């Protein structure tokens, strides 16, 4: 269906996920919702072996880049000091505290006589 990933089949790719994880792997297969079947999965930063075979769900994929095989820069190229990638979620930290305050101020406005 989506032929865009066809050129990447059986090649080393870099996959970035919505969680901010970045791995190197060999693309074995894919489908129209970008579910990926990959093998020989290694961490892009540390080069640690993660799994021999992996199925990645399409909605967790951010992008897959074709690794240049000529320069042999497969793993651990980034070095451990590399900053972690952000996720795509845009989460507000301790959001419940903000809403707690909003709720409290609303309550106060609704019944000022209680003070």
């Amino acid at each position, binding site marked *: 269906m*989506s*032929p*865009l*990933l066809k*050129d*990447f089949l059986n090649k080393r790719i*870099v996959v*970035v996920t*919505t969680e*901010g994880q*970045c791995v190197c792997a060999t693309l074995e297969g894919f489908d129209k919702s*970008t579910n990926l079947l990959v093998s020989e999965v290694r961490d*892009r*930063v540390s080069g640690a072996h993660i799994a021999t075979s992996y199925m990645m769900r*399409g*909605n967790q*994929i*951010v*992008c*897959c*880049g*074709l*690794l*240049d095989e000529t*320069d042999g*820069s497969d793993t651990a*190229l*980034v*070095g451990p000091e*590399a*900053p972690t*990638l*952000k*996720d*795509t979620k*845009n989460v507000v930290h301790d959001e419940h505290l903000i809403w707690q305050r909003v709720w409290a101020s609303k309550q106060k406005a609704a019944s000022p006589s209680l003070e």
Partner: protein
Amino acid sequence: MLFFSFFKTLVDQEVTVELKNDIELKGTLKSVDQFLNLKLDNISCSDETKYPHLSSVRNIFIRGSTVRYVYLNKNMVDTNLLQDAARREAMSSRK
């Protein structure tokens, strides 16, 4: 399908894509599909030192759902034509 066709007219042009994880990639648009998944060639990351993960990657597939913005040059877009096409699509879908 209007923006699918629109992006097809932009093939082989230089675009900048901002992803939802704040990475900006600049490259030549090579292909696009119905989900607005993009394929860029010859990419460069705007801040390579901050995110070196894609440093040895030239050809990249981007999932359409994780794109925040696609920056285009003003002269790449014929706004009048796009407006016309949008109107026509809206008319035809109303029927």
